[in-house]
């Protein structure tokens, strides 16, 4: 039995308060809703899910490549095929993400206190560009050589090249397979949780005749 004193202690716990705040922000029916507002009816809505799906394929094929190390795919035809899967999933990822970005721009999807959702999307895009570049530098072939010697001038010119050396293969590989994937995955997760907690943005309304949406989302 929980005594009154214990209950007071439990209510004051950081753990309890964290749980209550998280559940209040993102109750299960908001995290995984079974209904969506009626205005969500356009093909453009699919591109967020497609971007996520492509990211999953990128990560899965990247894991297979990392099992055997960076030079494996030059020597094994299966390795080369996995490299092709990795390349094309990356191309699809960026293609879907850029359409998603333009879609959200034309929806002005930042309205109703959703600016942080927009900003995390932009940060994911930037982190993904870094992951893409370091990926090209980790290929250990002519593309890696040429892209590194081209990229060095821009990065050196702003003083960053002294610390982020694109000619250092080992450094680029660790950024590509550890630092940047964690960044992309973590910000994407935050982006998704924000989308779920705020709900998808209602259509643009030139005038308001009632209370405003404060990021509660259109879902009932």
């Amino acid at each position, binding site marked *: 039995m929980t005594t009154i004193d214990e209950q007071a202690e439990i209510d004051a716990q950081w753990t309890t308060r964290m749980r209550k705040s998280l559940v209040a922000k993102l109750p299960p029916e908001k995290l995984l809703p079974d209904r969506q507002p009626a205005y969500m009816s356009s093909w453009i809505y699919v591109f967020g899910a*497609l971007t996520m*799906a492509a990211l999953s394929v990128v990560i899965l094929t990247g894991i297979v490549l990392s099992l055997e190390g960076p030079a494996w795919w030059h020597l094994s035809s299966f390795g080369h095929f996995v490299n092709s899967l990795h390349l094309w999933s990356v191309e699809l990822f960026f293609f879907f993400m850029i359409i998603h970005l333009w879609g959200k721009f034309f*929806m002005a999807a930042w309205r109703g206190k959703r600016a942080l959702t927009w900003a995390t999307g932009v940060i994911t895009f930037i982190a993904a560009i870094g992951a893409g570049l370091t990926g090209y530098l980790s290929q250990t072939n002519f593309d890696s050589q040429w892209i590194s010697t081209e990229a060095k001038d821009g990065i050196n010119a*702003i003083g960053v090249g*002294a610390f982020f*050396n694109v000619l250092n293969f080992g450094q680029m590989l660790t950024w590509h397979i550890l630092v940047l994937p964690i960044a992309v995955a973590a910000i994407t997760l935050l982006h998704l949780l924000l989308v779920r907690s705020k709900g998808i943005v*209602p259509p643009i309304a030139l005038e308001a005749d009632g209370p405003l949406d404060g990021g509660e989302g259109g879902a009932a």
Partner: protein
Amino acid sequence: MAPTKHYNPDRDVPAWKGGTRPYDLAKEVTLAFVVVAILTVGLAVLFGSPDDKAVTIRSWSNADQVGFAQTAITELDGTSASATYGPPYNNTPDVAQKIGPISLQQAAGIHIPVHPAQDFVLTPLSTAKGNPQQARWTAAYEKAAAKARVVDGKLNVPLGAYGPVGVMIANLTQMASSGALDAAMINGAGFYSTDYTKSLLFVADGTYYEDQAAKQHLLGEQWGMMNETGSYPGQPWLWLYTLWYQIPPFNGDNVWGANADAIVWVLMMGLTLVLMLLPFIPGLRSIPRWTRVYKLIWRDHYRSQA
């Protein structure tokens, strides 16, 4: 609760009072994954991926011996692109790029020291096991080269029993052709190496490397690093970054062109910040309302409103 501030259609949105409909999010995500997986496999089977062999000092010197020797002498006399690069590799006055009066490149200092005469020519030669005469020449040359200068565009080395410089360069070329120079260049780190900074800088000083890139439409004025070898898509998302290098004033022979890298980077960081803060920038955040593309996206909704 309705806020007290004035309603702004580019920032605010009325609470949704319309209906909802059943929607299976998990099914959508699963289907998306299956579709993308099939697309990826299809593209990979159809097109594969490019894998052009890396240029080695050996392949370069075998394919273009004259070009190699011409590059090697510029490493020795300190006139090559690498030798005169400035920070972060070495100290060359007035070459670091500037953004107005500020040079971040200079501020970062010489963090990755590269001294081409020593690193690309003298040290590798000292590891070569030639005949005794050659060994005496290289030893004498190393001593004398410490006081070498360039006079009227020609290398001027104080007299010594080192034989002609041509012999050295010939030896270096021979070393390069055998592959020994590739190994000597990365041996600085010991048995294992993951850092190819010096080899890449040396290879990039030669015209052979650039010719290979030109054949693959990879030069800076060909939209450079955005492309990859063959007819593969490369990194098209870098188009805006690469665009600046193709247009005036950044591609000109002027102060903008000389500092293009630094200015383009600052410009791109500024534009990225603008994109990130777009929801707060009046005018820019109204573009969606003005262009009316949203009428198309939510046409079902607006039709039902009418």
